[in-house]
């Protein structure tokens, strides 16, 4: 088979304690990762209406042909799919992913992915050493936190030679490796089947959204450990090396002598390890760290060792509370809170939105000792590590308010009788499908629409960085953005193939409901489904549309992605062909959701998105949300904060989007013609059988 693939996928039946293989070639047309995962799920999960914790749920953990190679900001990502426990009101088939070195080690062991079926009779961990796969008794591992679990498995695999050579049979270097086993594990949250439990790997890598930690727990699966001594066969090593050196010109690493300190937030050209320093106490040294083969090294190891490798919302769920408690300063509390969250294996997004919500209810006098919602949470300690510990302990033990939060925010709010009121006022900022607002659907609509027509917070920053972050920060500092709105629209028109419509980034009050915005969302869904989630290009490196080091500010997209893919695989795939595969995967996912009950009438944001234009109280403006708009015949940047969505116009936009995608505008279901053109006739047959084929 083509370079980059090992040729086989490991299939694990926990019920029967049996392993078998799937030929990767059968699913090669999907590229890898998400596409293969969706296709395998389609084939193996016969009843797609089952619940997440049903033993029949099929979980795929997939690599990409680029995993374990030197492709930058790609090689370390692993894609996870299956029916998730977090989605509300339906437990949608969903995805998550994580970084680190798991995918590379899986490839080195000879596997393109792992498929998990059934439920183990008792707590189990799976021990993969090259082609040898064993089911291990998890006694002594079950009950450990996510860090201790990995340490214990390392000890069991490496024995008394921890950190030294391990012999794993045949392969490169005589079958020996100095790699530690790469372990994907759950913490206590997963063991207790929390809907908000994450999968954790090494330190700071987590697949949080979706609740797959709870799904592992339901399967009695504590961890998967993999140790490989092989390599990845690259079709054209010189082309791959050339591509890596070419990409270096687009990264800060290639510009030591002409470093540009402030771009406009180009994804690929970000600085190694710099940003996380904002979270640590000022006097605490740290060093950059990154995922396998990545040039960005966007994470940090701290001197204290707490929260090593964490980034993003791992800190953000607590950093402002820490600062508020400590006179505006960050202290060890934020690192300790992140460490506790990682060890427990809890989704940080739930904690972030959850603490905001609980604090609001507390101040309203609804939640507290002897209140309508009783809790002894020590709000006077909010900002200290002790508050984070108390909250996390309550969730893990399903005690007090934790008994509700264990089920995730949406279900907690429903059980507490607060869902309707609090998502209407916005004090519980769940935007769609029970997922916390990440970026605002009222302003940055491509994020909201993508999440709504999909099944979760998309968490894809391709446009967000350029259209919101960079111009908004520039406005705060009174400087013009490094690139004009007009030029940005021109770059987008060049790069967003096949649509090539400059109005695609028009976020004006009219633009957000336009055909052009439908194209932007379609481009984004197709691009991410293939390049980002199937080939595993990291969200923090790709797409590379704008790049301050590129010729005339142009980044590597759409040239870069196929350059790496073709060098590794030996294929001659074009970017446009990749986008079509993305469309195919997107339609396949859509079909699964439809079998689960999806209809366009369900695709509605929570009420605050339509009814609240600004935060109540003494703030009449949110932080400036400056975005490119095309108004009165010219491009400019403008703050669109305070905007509410118009229900009818959102519905009209959905009709435009469904038309563009070739879906039935009344139901949002794909038609046979659309599916057949994509090579999904068998999917059309299944939808028709279930009376859910669009017409």
């Amino acid at each position, binding site marked *: 088979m083509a370079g980059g693939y090992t040729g086989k996928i490991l299939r694990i039946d926990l019920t029967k304690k049996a392993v078998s293989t799937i030929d990767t070639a059968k699913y090669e047309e999907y590229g890898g990762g998400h596409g293969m995962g969706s296709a395998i799920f389609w084939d193996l999960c016969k009843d797609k209406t089952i619940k997440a914790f049903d033993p029949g749920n099929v979980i795929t953990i997939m690599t990409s042909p680029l995993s374990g190679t030197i492709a930058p900001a790609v090689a370390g990502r692993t894609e996870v799919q299956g029916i998730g426990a977090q989605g509300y009101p339906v437990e949608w088939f969903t995805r998550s992913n994580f970084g680190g070195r798991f995918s590379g080690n899986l490839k080195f062991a000879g596997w393109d992915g792992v498929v998990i079926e059934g439920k183990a009779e008792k707590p189990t961990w799976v021990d993969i050493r090259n082609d040898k796969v064993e089911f291990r008794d998890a006694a002594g591992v079950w009950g450990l936190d996510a860090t201790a679990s990995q340490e214990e498995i390392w000890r069991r695999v490496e024995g008394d030679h921890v950190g030294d050579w391990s012999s794993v049979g045949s392969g490169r270097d005589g079958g020996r490796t100095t790699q530690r086993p790469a372990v994907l594990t759950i913490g206590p949250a997963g063991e207790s089947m929390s809907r908000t439990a994450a999968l954790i790997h090494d330190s700071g890598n987590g697949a949080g959204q979706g609740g797959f930690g709870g799904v592992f727990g339901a399967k009695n699966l504590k961890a998967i450990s993999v140790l490989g001594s092989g390599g990845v066969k690259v079709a054209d090593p010189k082309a791959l090396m050339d591509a890596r050196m070419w990409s270096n010109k687009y990264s800060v690493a290639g510009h030591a002598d002409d470093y*540009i*300190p*402030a*771009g406009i*937030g180009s994804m690929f050209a*970000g*600085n*190694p390890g*710099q*940003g996380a320093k*904002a*979270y640590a106490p000022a006097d605490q040294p740290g060093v950059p760290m990154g995922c396998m083969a990545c040039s960005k090294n*966007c994470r940090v190891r701290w001197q204290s060792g707490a929260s090593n490798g964490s*980034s*993003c*919302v791992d*800190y*953000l769920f607590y*950093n*402002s509370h820490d*600062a*508020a*408690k400590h*006179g*505006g300063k960050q202290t060890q509390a934020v690192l300790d809170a992140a460490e506790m969250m990682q060890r427990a294996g809890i989704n940080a997004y739930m904690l*972030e*939105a959850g603490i*905001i919500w609980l*604090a609001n209810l507390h*101040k309203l006098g609804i939640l507290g000792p002897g209140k309508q919602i009783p809790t002894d949470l020590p709000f006077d300690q909010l900002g200290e590590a002790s508050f984070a510990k108390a909250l996390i302990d309550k969730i893990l033990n399903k005690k007090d308010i934790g008994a509700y939060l264990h089920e995730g925010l949406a279900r907690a709010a429903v059980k507490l009788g607060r869902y309707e009121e609090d998502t209407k006022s*916005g004090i519980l*900022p769940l935007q769609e499908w029970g997922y916390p*607002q*990440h*970026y*605002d659907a009222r302003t940055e609509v491509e994020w909201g629409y993508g999440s709504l027509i999909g099944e979760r917070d998309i968490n894809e*920053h391709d446009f*967000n*960085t350029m259209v919101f*972050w*960079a111009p*908004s*920060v*520039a*406005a*705060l*500092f*009174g*400087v013009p953005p490094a690139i004009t709105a007009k030029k940005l629209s021109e770059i987008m028109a060049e790069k967003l193939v096949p649509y090539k419509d400059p109005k695609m980034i028009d976020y004006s009050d009219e633009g957000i409901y336009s055909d052009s915005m439908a194209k932007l969302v379609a481009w984004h869904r197709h691009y991410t489904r293939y390049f980002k989630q199937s080939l595993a290009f990291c969200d*923090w490196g790709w797409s590379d549309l704008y790049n301050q080091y590129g010729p005339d500010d142009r980044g590597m997209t759409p040239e870069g992605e196929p350059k790496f893919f073709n060098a590794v695989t030996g294929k001659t795939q074009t970017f446009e062909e990749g986008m079509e595969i993305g469309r195919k995967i997107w339609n396949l996912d859509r079909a699964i959701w439809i079998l689960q009950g999806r209809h366009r009438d369900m695709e509605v944001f929570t009420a605050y998105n339509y009814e609240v234009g600004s*935060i*109540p*109280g*003494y*703030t*009449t*403006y*949110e*932080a*400036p949300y400056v975005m490119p708009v095309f108004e009165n015949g010219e491009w400019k940047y403008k703050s669109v904060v305070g905007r509410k969505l118009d229900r009818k116009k959102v519905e009209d936009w959905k009709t435009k989007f469904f038309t563009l995608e070739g879906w039935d505008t009344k139901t949002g279901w794909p038609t046979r013609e659309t599916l057949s053109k994509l090579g999904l006739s068998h999917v059309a047959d299944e939808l028709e059988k279930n009376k859910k084929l669009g017409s």
Partner: protein
Amino acid sequence: MMMATEMTTPSLELATRILGEAGFEDRLVGVKIAQMGGANPTGLYTLADAAAFLKIDSYDELVGSVGRATVGYIEPKALASWVSGVFGDEELAEAIRAEAERSEFYAQTVEPVKALLESRLSQCREVVGAAEPA
């Protein structure tokens, strides 16, 4: 810390109010923004909350790095209205408005306004402390 505008010493009654806590409906809403995490509205109930929340990392950190620098954003005019309307401190409110008008862009206001809040809090603590029985 930057020098704050000199403000007259508040009465005990005013100082006590200024050190008090707003109710939920009267809260000030700041927005914590970070490139990775998005925008999160944060309820602020005391002047000390607001002073601690106000923050802006450098432009280079915010735009040039990989996205974890943060802004604790409070709209200055809303802050002034809150200080005046909820705590009755017209003098501080006016000083905040003046600082905002003096600044050419938002980032310039952060440290001076933060200094104003901290200075006022310090004054109030002294007044209330002096009034407490030894």
